[in-house]
């Protein structure tokens, strides 16, 4: 005989109780008795229950769920077998009376079981004596197809494990009865004797996870737990969804997450096998840490604290764990291994976590419409062809195979063609590439990151310049390929054109529904002069800007309504602009100028209201200024300390990453073709000019005009390039991609507007305008592709080593004296020189060296003119031991050097002529002081590493570092700091007197990187702050509409 006692626990549940009570009352299988326990509800819960005729036991608000259930159990005596009515007591002996199976049906006040839920639950456990615990399929209260649970378990990191996907809809996909670890207490059916035998719920688990714990204990006691999918209940999850307060006594600060996590840890540690306890504790701690970081990023610091506090609260009270384990040990019948199969394997946990993260990202991205700027997306193509629709139809109506379908899509075919062309154009770049602006890549990205942290760079004459941020970004990006920087750089340059084509297409689709127009626009963008020039000349900065140009352009378009941006969007803009600044300071200046111009105009316009008798909106003005300032200052802050160096040396802000190339004039990039000549004009300026006089697309043309004007203005300057004192044109590739993008969008808008008008009209100027755009785009793209495949493929970027310094010159610098060599090469009528050290220059090195030092410049100039009788002496002071004049040797120069004195010809080979500099100093040398006349003796070499040096000196004298002077050089002798002075030829020197050598002469010379580390810390803080602000914030569960949760 089956008897059912329903125990309904209510706590401020008036919202849900009417449905719950009604559901209980209408069950197809009668409930023998219903007992309600109200834990101090302050709403109408008690009245509602009583009005339904349910006996209510009232307790305090602080009573936990388990205790409340226990109270109800204690208050309801167990059913015993009784005589059916009409039979005498003696007619049947006690032994023949049917056995009573009493089930406790524990129900939450926010859970409404379906009409047949109990019936199906009982059917699920019928004839299954081993089953002691059963639960229904839980669905959402509001979304009744939302599958919440079908049995529950616990992950080893404490997470509640249902094995379901986010917001999984119930389509019967899990409708097979299953053995589970536990079922939710929302509508839990449990044999009374088992419940009593196990002592009910653990009183330590006042709320949350008590179900898992009970299920675990039931299983350990040798019973089965099943989820019955035929039985359905609708659960509001009011407590976990923060729809009611958590008032249980042991809930610290009454925070649901804290309580849930604490109980999760407790359940794991109380029930798991002893040998797993250490690893479980560690895993709980680490996962709490990771989750708390996640919550911090999601801007939920309260949740982050909950995570950490929960684990800490459990771990600092081990006695509670051991007491709980003792209780469980007495109840356990099965070994731990019997339970293990009900815990989710780690692999599945990771996979599901990954999929949830991916889904979350997809959901986030799905909410955003990429590159959509216009308020009203064109509904129909101006060509009267709804390409998207056609494609859709092809897919769904013709039932072609996926491959065949793909081959009918223009974008796919075009992409294939471009990939094929990329292979042809990259025929000289198969392998690790370098050349042009791109220096050799180190094998590991970690080398770049190390370089980023260094305060002194042993390159040429040495440099303490701040390493640009882009070097760290590229180094970190190589992590995608396990740190293989060479491969990453090569792949990036291979993929640059296809990527920009794809991005350009996506960008264009925001302005037209026509695939053909979008493809034409994308190809005009991808094959534009700045991008092709960047690919063939190794301009990594331009290419990165080309990839984010759509976003930058979007920000320019929206800049006039900056006050409408949310603070998160402001932070995201700051991050975007920081990338622009890192990879193309000129592009950043263009953006800044645009904001400045708009700010000026808007502010003047606002104050101009006074003239019309209106009042200006000061709050609006302030909001615009604050948001603009935050974006620009944020971008600068994320790039400190390098960005501050740009402020101190503004000319450097006109350079892009890598070796600065002459000839890449901004005007040629704007108006010329990829070969950087004006043989064929670019389509962009033609489009811009036409669009400028068409009111509907003038806004885009004005942006293009603004960018081109600023870029042309920059072209007025001649600046010293990276790794060179040669005056060159500014690097404006990044800025010109913005111009190209603006012009192309103007062109698309122009076509969208003009084509419908010209279709039905007689020949007029609009026909010519459209023809001019079409022809210029076609010609530009064709000529660009031809150039790319022909001369462009032979551009400076190649997969061959371009470093042409003989090995013996390099070997010379690897000794402990660290001698340098001066290399002179004549190229195109110019004499170039460089100071060579112990290794070839690598990517990023050029951006750290700015010019030579004045003494060296004079020495080399004197060397060339023959006037420099001090040249050898100065070069020697700088630790330059060899002078190498490369082939083809300028005989006149060689004769001059022969005659100038101080240089002894060492060799003359096919590589060139080498002279030895008389009296060259080692990198670190000591000029001993003898009776105050240091000059009477020759200097003594002190060995050194690349930057630092340590050793012992025995005599007083002057220690000179043959490096460029920097006030962060330090020398400690016996831990006493020696004062730094600027010595002969401007070299850093330390005067070591007898007083320093009293206790021996152990010395250390190093470059003090404290300030660099300080700045980098600030940079990290700035980046982390803006990144966290920019990331989508997760809502507190209480803020999420209940319809989304259940």
């Amino acid at each position, binding site marked *: 005989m089956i008897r059912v006692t329903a125990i309904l626990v209510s706590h401020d549940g008036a919202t849900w109780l009417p449905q719950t009570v009604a559901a209980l009352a209408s069950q197809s299988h009668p409930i023998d008795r219903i007992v309600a326990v109200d834990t101090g509800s302050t709403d109408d819960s008690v009245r509602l229950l009583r009005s339904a005729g349910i006996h209510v036991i009232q307790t305090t608000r602080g009573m936990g769920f388990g205790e409340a259930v226990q109270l109800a159990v204690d208050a309801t005596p167990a059913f015993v077998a009784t005589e059916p009515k009409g039979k005498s007591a003696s007619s049947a002996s006690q032994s023949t009376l049917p056995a009573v199976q009493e089930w406790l049906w524990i129900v939450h006040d926010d859970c409404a079981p379906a009409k047949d839920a109990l019936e199906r639950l009982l059917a699920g456990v019928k004839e299954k004596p081993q089953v002691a615990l059963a639960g229904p399929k839980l669905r959402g209260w509001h979304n009744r197809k939302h599958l919440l649970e079908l049995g529950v378990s616990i992950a080893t990191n404490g997470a509640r494990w249902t094995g379901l996907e986010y917001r999984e809809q119930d389509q019967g996909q899990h409708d097979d009865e299953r053995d589970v670890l536990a079922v939710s207490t929302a509508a839990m059916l449990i044999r009374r004797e088992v419940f009593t035998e196990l002592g009910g719920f653990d009183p330590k688990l006042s709320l949350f996870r008590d179900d898992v714990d009970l299920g675990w204990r039931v299983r350990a006691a040798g019973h089965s737990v099943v989820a019955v999918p035929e039985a359905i209940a609708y659960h509001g999850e009011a407590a976990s969804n923060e729809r009611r307060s958590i008032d249980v006594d042991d809930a610290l600060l009454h925070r649901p997450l804290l309580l849930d996590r604490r109980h999760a840890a407790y359940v794991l540690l109380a029930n798991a096998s002893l040998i797993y306890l250490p690893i479980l504790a560690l895993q709980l701690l680490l996962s709490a840490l990771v989750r708390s970081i996640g919550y911090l990023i999601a801007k939920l610091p309260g949740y982050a604290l909950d995570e950490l506090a929960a684990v800490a609260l459990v771990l600092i009270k081990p006695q509670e764990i051991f007491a709980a384990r003792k209780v469980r040990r007495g109840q356990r019948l099965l070994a731990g291994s019997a339970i293990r199969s009900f815990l989710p394997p780690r692999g599945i946990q990771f996979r599901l976590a990954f999929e949830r993260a991916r889904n979350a990202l997809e959901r986030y991205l799905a909410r955003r419409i990429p590159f959509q700027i216009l308020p009203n997306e064109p509904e129909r193509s101006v060509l009267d062809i709804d390409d998207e629709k056609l494609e859709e139809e092809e897919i769904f109506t013709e039932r072609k195979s996926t491959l065949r379908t793909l081959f009918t899509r223009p974008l796919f075919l075009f992409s294939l063609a471009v990939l094929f062309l990329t292979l042809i154009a990259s025929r000289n770049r198969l392998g690790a590439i370098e050349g042009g602006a791109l220096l050799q890549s180190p094998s590991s990205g970690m080398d770049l990151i190390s370089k980023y942290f260094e305060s002194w760079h042993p390159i*040429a004459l040495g440099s303490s310049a701040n390493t640009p941020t882009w070097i760290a970004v590229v180094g970190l990006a190589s992590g995608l390929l396990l740190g293989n920087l060479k491969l990453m750089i090569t792949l990036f340059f291979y993929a640059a054109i296809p990527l920009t084509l794809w991005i350009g297409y996506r960008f264009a689709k925001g302005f037209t529904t026509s695939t053909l127009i979008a493809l034409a626009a994308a190809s005009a963008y991808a094959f534009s002069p700045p991008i092709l020039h960047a690919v063939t000349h190794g301009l990594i900065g331009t290419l990165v800007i080309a990839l984010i140009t759509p976003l930058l352009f979007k920000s320019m378009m929206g800049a006039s309504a900056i006050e409408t941006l949310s603070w998160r969007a402001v932070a995201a803009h700051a991050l975007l602009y920081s990338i622009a600044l890192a990879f193309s300071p000129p592009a950043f200046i263009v953006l800044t100028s645009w904001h400045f111009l708009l700010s000026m105009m808007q502010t003047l316009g606002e104050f101009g209201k006074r003239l019309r008798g209106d009042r200006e909106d000061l709050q609006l003005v302030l909001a615009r200024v604050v948001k603009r300032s935050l974006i620009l200052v944020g971008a600068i802050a994320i790039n400190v300390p390098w960005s501050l160096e740009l402020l101190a040396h503004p000319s450097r802000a006109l350079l892009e990453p890598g*070796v600065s190339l002459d000839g890449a004039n901004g*005007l040629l990039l704007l108006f010329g073709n990829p070969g950087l000549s004006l043989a064929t004009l670019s389509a962009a300026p033609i489009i811009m000019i036409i669009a*400028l006089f068409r*009111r509907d697309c*003038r806004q885009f043309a*004005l942006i293009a*005009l603004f960018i*081109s*004007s600023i870029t*042309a*203005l920059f*072209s*007025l300057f*001649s600046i010293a390039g990276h*790794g*060179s004192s*040669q*005056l*060159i*044109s500014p690097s404006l590739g990044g800025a010109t991609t913005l111009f190209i993008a603006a012009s192309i969008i103007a062109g698309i808008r122009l076509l969208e507007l003009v084509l419908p008008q010209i279709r039905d009209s007689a020949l007029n100027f609009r026909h010519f305008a459209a023809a001019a755009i079409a022809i210029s785009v076609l010609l530009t793209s064709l000529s660009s592709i031809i150039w790319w495949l022909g001369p462009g493929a032979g551009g400076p970027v190649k997969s061959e080593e371009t*470093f*042409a*310094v003989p090995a013996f010159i390099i070997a010379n610098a690897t000794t402990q004296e660290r001698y340098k060599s001066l*290399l002179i*090469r004549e*190229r195109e*009528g*110019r*004499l*170039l*020189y*460089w100071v060579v050290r112990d290794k070839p*220059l690598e990517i990023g090195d*050029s951006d750290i*060296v700015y010019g*030579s030092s004045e003494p*060296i410049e004079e020495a*080399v*100039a*004197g*060397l*060339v*003119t*023959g*006037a*420099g*009788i001090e040249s*050898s*002496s100065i070069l020697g002071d700088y630790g330059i031991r060899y002078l190498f004049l*490369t082939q083809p040797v300028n005989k006149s120069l060689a*004769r001059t050097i*022969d*005659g*100038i*004195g*101080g240089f*002894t*010809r060492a060799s003359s080979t096919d590589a060139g002529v080498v002279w030895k500099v*008389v009296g060259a100093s080692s990198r670190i040398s000591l000029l001993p002081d003898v009776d105050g006349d240091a000059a009477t003796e020759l200097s003594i070499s002190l060995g050194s590493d690349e930057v630092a040096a340590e050793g012992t000196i025995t005599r007083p004298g002057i220690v000179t570092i043959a490096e460029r002077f920097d006030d962060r050089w330090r020398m400690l002798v016996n831990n006493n700091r020696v004062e730094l002075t600027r010595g002969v030829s401007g070299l850093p020197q330390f005067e070591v007197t007898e007083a320093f050598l009293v206790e021996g002469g152990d010395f250390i010379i190093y470059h003090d990187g404290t300030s660099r580390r300080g700045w980098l810390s600030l940079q990290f803080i700035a980046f982390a702050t803006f990144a966290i602000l920019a990331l989508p914030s997760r809502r507190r569960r209480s803020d999420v509409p209940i319809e989304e949760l259940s």
Partner: protein
Amino acid sequence: MSADRMSQSAPLRYWRVQSALLLIGSLLISTVAWRQSDPSARVERTASIPATVCPNLGGDARTVALLPSAATKIKDAKSRKINFAKAKSNPYLLSSGSIVVAGSEVSSTVIRSRAGKYTSATTCLIGSGDQWFVGGSGGLGSTARILVINSGLSTSTIEIRSFGESGKTGEKVIALPAVSQREVRVDSLAPGEGVVALEVITRSGRVSAFLFDQRGRGLNSLGADFVSSGEASQRLVITAIPVRHRGSAIQTHQLHLIATGARSAVVDVELVSDGSRFTPVGLSDRTIESERVTSLRLPKELGKRPATLIVTSTEPIAGSVYSSTGREFAWSTPSISLKGVGWNVGGLEPTITMVGKTVRVKALVKLRNGKTLTKNLNGAEVLQWKVPPNSRLIELSGLDSIHFGATWSSSDGFTSIPLNPGTELERATTPTFDLGALFG
């Protein structure tokens, strides 16, 4: 047109005009930027004047250097120190050895004289790699010697070739240590040769060579003079041949020529004397054999003012004129054409001879009392100008290229120097610190 239409078209016109103006502005910027962006304009050139060497042969003669100014920096040619110090006096007495004079646009001159016996002068210079000296003697009574000075900081290698009337007489290679000087007697190179020509080739190092010709008979001095060096050329203009000393005409003038190449040269000699230009008898179409010194006697009377000799040749030649009174002599050597010249005359009153197609020269004279005189000197082919008394510095600048030479006579003797710069302004493309040097 209705008012309504007018109100609509006005702003329409306005924004189009605005667009046009913006476009024109942008185009203007672009045009200016385009004109500014000529990369060739960015090639920087460096120019510097190398330091020169003023020789001092020692002995009992007095040697002074006429420096550009007392602030001119000098240093001992034998010192390894690279620091220069101000001379502090001008003329500067060379008491110990030769000096190195920091580069200046005004050349320095060394005057070596012995009271009542001789006076001689030469320009302080730095060797150009190949110097020709036509003069000196290896004969009896001659103590001519060539002084080679290495002012550089490394050992230099010098090759000296000597030629006489019969051809090449000797060759000597000298390894000269850093910052040192050495004298080589001409009679050791060309023993017995009456007239010699020397070619000093600097193989390596910073070398300056000077030839000092001194002659005597027994204890009697027959005079002395520096033989200035020059480069072989097909046209020699020997501007300032002294013609008078102590009021008397100098009777002996001999032209010595050598064809420096492998082929003999055919020369024509023209003499410009007291405004007349003529070819002396027998000096037309004369063959000068290769690597042999040919002596040609010039007329005894060359006029009252310093004479000029113009030698044109079919092959590169070097030459000089030997003028002697019997008690003193001078070597006049060719001068090169210049737009201008600066010279610290140090109180001398030389006669400057200027030779060109037309001579239009502006003379600026700075006197010892601080005053400055300017004078325009105009003439036909040859013009002579005597430097005013108490002059300190003269600066001559011509419209066209002019050959300048100077001669003067004093109680000690007479001499002649070509006003050639001791060194030339060295121009070269400024070397650029550029990592492009690393890549082939």
